[in-house]
């Protein structure tokens, strides 16, 4: 679950405590200085908003999917809470004909919150299935619109079902029997929300969801099923939002459809985005900053307000400082941040991880080089009779290869030979018209990409797909997490050793996107090796490299494969590289395998010479 208990549990707990103390402490100081009821209400509102924003962060931050729907879930939770929490006498006044016999029930607020969470989670699960079906991934538009639709549906239903909700007009608001005195439940929920958000972010599911956020395709190639992790994130996030929303209703003492609609969705999103949606610290900062900015704008809008002894009611400025200025501030903050700093003030800076780097981990020693495995596990990759047609065009005809564990098999061919189509077939990107491929007889054709890698066929990408904002170490950790679950029967190498092996030790804390080209290639190789693969499929591993870099790469691929006992299937169009690295070579031309054998045999083959040098070479 957690690769490193100190980093992933202890420090997040400390971090949650600190964030909690800062937010609550700051609020108390403000409240004490002003010493009036309105300041007290402002602080309470801020604390409740913080719970909801942290809840939303768990989903948006870790999956990268923009959701407007969380406030819709909040509406469901709020109404369920209200309907259960208020007394039958009160219901007689507000909703005398409540359905499902709800008019006679009253439970304690705590139980009402629990029921609200439970009911809302059921809805979240259904919506989550819909999101998964729509192919949700980071930034996907359809998923965002589904969540927007959810927000509107809950609002419509709340407005048009007065028997249950009391409807839309003023005066039909619920008065909740005993309104919330004191802040204890809010403070407890806030701390719990921080803890849940931070620990989820460091957990296996959180890490895998973040990997999929960074690069969905690469995550699937590393055995991650993003849809499962997104669902987990959604459910946890909705649970926190439900608690926050129930408390919001309890604290205000009433609920109306408009309280959980566009404006509140906008407010919570702006809070999340301003601070930095990818970190919990950012979410908390955003709540504080936006609460302050809106309060300032509100007071500037009132007449008679002074700042530093200067009145702002002078005629020239009066057209700016008016009531409702705080709504404009929200919109401006959102657009300004999107234009100039779309990942927020803190980007993904996380306080507790920073603290861990500073004081938590002590001296790290570079691990020894890994020894190659004594014996390579016996295993066979076989693809045979692969046919692929695009419309009338036959891209592959009866193509097939075999590879054994520990062997390095090269695939080469001129442009248009069908190499890429072949790779796409055995990586699950293209469904073959005919044919199958398997490892040790287990048929893998037609399986999704994440199943292939869990079964031992792990790929790299021609144009580099790393998890850009994750550190070098975290990139490899993602694979290790999957390997521990699905590749337990193989020798799984430890993350630090693999980093050292790939020559990345000194770069271990850098973000993957900051690496130079050669190091990025090596990181991709190490990340694939961390999956404990039976076969590594390297797609043009030297593209963009100089000759001398290619030569070094040959050594690294060989050694890395030997330390994890994997066979290698390598595709390239560089004849020198392929003959230098491979034990056996398959030559593709015009969608067919035209030759195979050792490098020497293949080079002597007249058909190969024809394909590479033109048919004149034969005659």
């Amino acid at each position: 679950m957690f690769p490193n208990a100190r980093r992933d549990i202890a420090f997040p707990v400390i971090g949650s405590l600190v964030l909690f103390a800062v937010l609550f402490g700051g609020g108390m100081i403000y409240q004490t200085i002003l010493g009036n009821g309105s300041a007290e209400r402002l602080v309470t509102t801020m604390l409740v908003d913080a719970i909801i924003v942290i809840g939303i962060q768990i989903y948006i931050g870790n999956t990268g999917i923009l959701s407007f729907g969380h406030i819709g879930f909040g509406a469901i939770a709020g109404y369920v809470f209200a309907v259960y929490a208020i007394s039958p006498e009160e219901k007689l006044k507000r909703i005398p004909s409540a359905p499902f016999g709800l008019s006679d029930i009253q439970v304690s607020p705590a139980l009402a919150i629990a029921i609200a969470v439970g009911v809302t989670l059921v809805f979240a699960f259904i919506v989550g299935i819909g999101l998964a079906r729509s192919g949700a991934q980071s930034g996907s538009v359809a998923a965002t619109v589904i969540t927007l639709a959810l927000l509107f549906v809950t609002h419509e239903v709340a407005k048009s079902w007065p028997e249950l909700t009391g409807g839309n007009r003023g005066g039909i608001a619920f008065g909740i029997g005993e309104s919330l005195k004191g802040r204890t439940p809010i403070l407890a929920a806030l701390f719990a929300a921080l803890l849940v958000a931070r620990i989820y972010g460091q957990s296996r599911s959180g890490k895998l969801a973040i990997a999929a956020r960074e690069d969905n395709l690469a995550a699937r190639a590393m055995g991650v099923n993003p849809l499962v992790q997104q669902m987990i994130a959604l459910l946890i996030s909705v649970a926190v939002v439900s608690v926050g929303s129930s408390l919001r209703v309890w604290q205000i003492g009433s609920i109306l459809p408009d309280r959980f609609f566009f404006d509140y969705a906008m407010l919570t999103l702006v809070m999340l985005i301003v601070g930095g949606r990818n970190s919990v610290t950012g979410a908390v900062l955003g709540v504080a900053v936006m609460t302050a900015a809106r309060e300032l704008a509100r007071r500037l809008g009132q007449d008679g307000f002074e700042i530093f002894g200067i009145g702002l009611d002078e005629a020239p400025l009066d057209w700016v400082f008016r009531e409702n200025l705080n709504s404009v501030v929200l919109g401006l903050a959102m657009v300004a941040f999107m234009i100039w700093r779309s990942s927020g003030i803190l980007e993904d800076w996380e306080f507790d991880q920073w603290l861990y780097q500073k004081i938590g981990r002590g001296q790290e020693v570079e691990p020894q080089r890994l020894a190659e495995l004594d014996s390579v596990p016996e295993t066979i990759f076989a693809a045979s009779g692969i046919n692929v047609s695009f419309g009338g065009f036959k891209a592959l005809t009866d193509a097939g290869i075999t590879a054994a564990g520990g062997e390095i098999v090269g695939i080469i061919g001129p442009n248009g030979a069908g190499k890429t189509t072949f790779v796409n077939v055995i990586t699950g990107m293209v469904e073959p018209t005919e044919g199958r491929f398997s490892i040790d007889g287990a048929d893998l054709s037609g399986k999704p990409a994440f199943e292939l890698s869990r079964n031992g066929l792990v790929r790299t990408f021609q144009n580099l797909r790393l998890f850009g904002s994750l550190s070098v170490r975290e990139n490899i950790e993602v694979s290790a997490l999957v390997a521990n679950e699905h590749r337990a029967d193989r020798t799984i190498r430890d993350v630090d050793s693999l980093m050292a092996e790939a020559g990345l030790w000194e770069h271990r804390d850098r973000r993957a996107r900051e690496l130079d080209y050669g190091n990025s290639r090596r990181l991709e190789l190490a990340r694939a090796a961390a999956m404990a693969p039976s076969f590594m499929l390297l797609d043009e591993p030297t593209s963009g490299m100089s000759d001398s870099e290619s030569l070094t790469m040959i050594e690294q691929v060989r050694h890395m494969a030997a330390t994890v006992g994997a066979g290698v299937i390598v595709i390239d169009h560089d004849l020198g590289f392929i003959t230098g690295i491979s034990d056996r070579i398959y030559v593709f031309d015009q969608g067919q395998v035209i030759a195979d054998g050792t490098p020497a045999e293949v080079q002597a083959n007249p058909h190969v010479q024809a394909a590479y040098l033109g048919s004149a070479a034969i005659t």
Partner: protein
Amino acid sequence: MSELLQNLIDGLGRGSIYALLALGVAVVFGIMHLLNFAHGELITIPGYLTYWAFNNGWNWWTVVPLIVVSAVITSLIIERVAFSRVRGASDFTLLLTSFGVHFIVSAGFLLYVSASVKPYPRPTWFAKTLAVGSLNIEVFDLVVIAVTVVVLAGTTWLLQRTMFGLALRAAAADFDAARLMGVKSDSVIRGAFALSGFLAGIAGVFWIMREGQVTPTAGINPMLQGVLAALIGGLGSLRGAVLGGLALGLAEVLLRSWLPVGIQNLTTGFVFVMIALLFIFRPGGLLSVPQVERV
């Protein structure tokens, strides 16, 4: 039977307005992958101008061109001030930028005009009906349908037969390739926003006539209908957008007449649920544009 026919005409009338809105959304989406949540502001702002114009003695003959022209100008200004600065950014950024623009405009009207409803007169022929056999056809629906057909025909001509249309379609298919082929990105993007504004302006004329009033949040509904219709049809497909608009209009009218009386006011909710189901089973929309995953 006659009720069905009546509903069909009614639905086509509504659907035509949605189709124009959706087409505007789709044109912009095609060119910069931006799902424009601020599309409704192309109706809010002309709506307030309409209110202002009637208070200053204008009539519908002069207000109609005012609506169309102001929609085009608004579209261009929003592009210049906000969207031109986030070109090529992630979908997440684009979505939230347009959402923010919507919020600024509606909050601005709230701040500087007022939260209250601003009414203006509807055209005199608005409520007239034509009796054809047993049918009572609203003149308004007929005008909407006729104008939409003309505008769509004009737009098709523009896209298929002019250099601008060719550049726009090329840029929508592959923006970078189109630039390399000499398509000027600035002018084609501005052209797309102008076209989008013009289509919203035509739709706006009818929307504004039908509403008879304007509020700061008047843009939300046309925006939603336009965005949803574009999605129903399949994002990226212009034909799909028109189809999606008509489908949405028909679905609304037919659902309203079929739903039992007690839950008729849940029509919008049902439409949303149907749309969500459509996305779940056909994520690409009706005319889905195949998305190939690039490695």
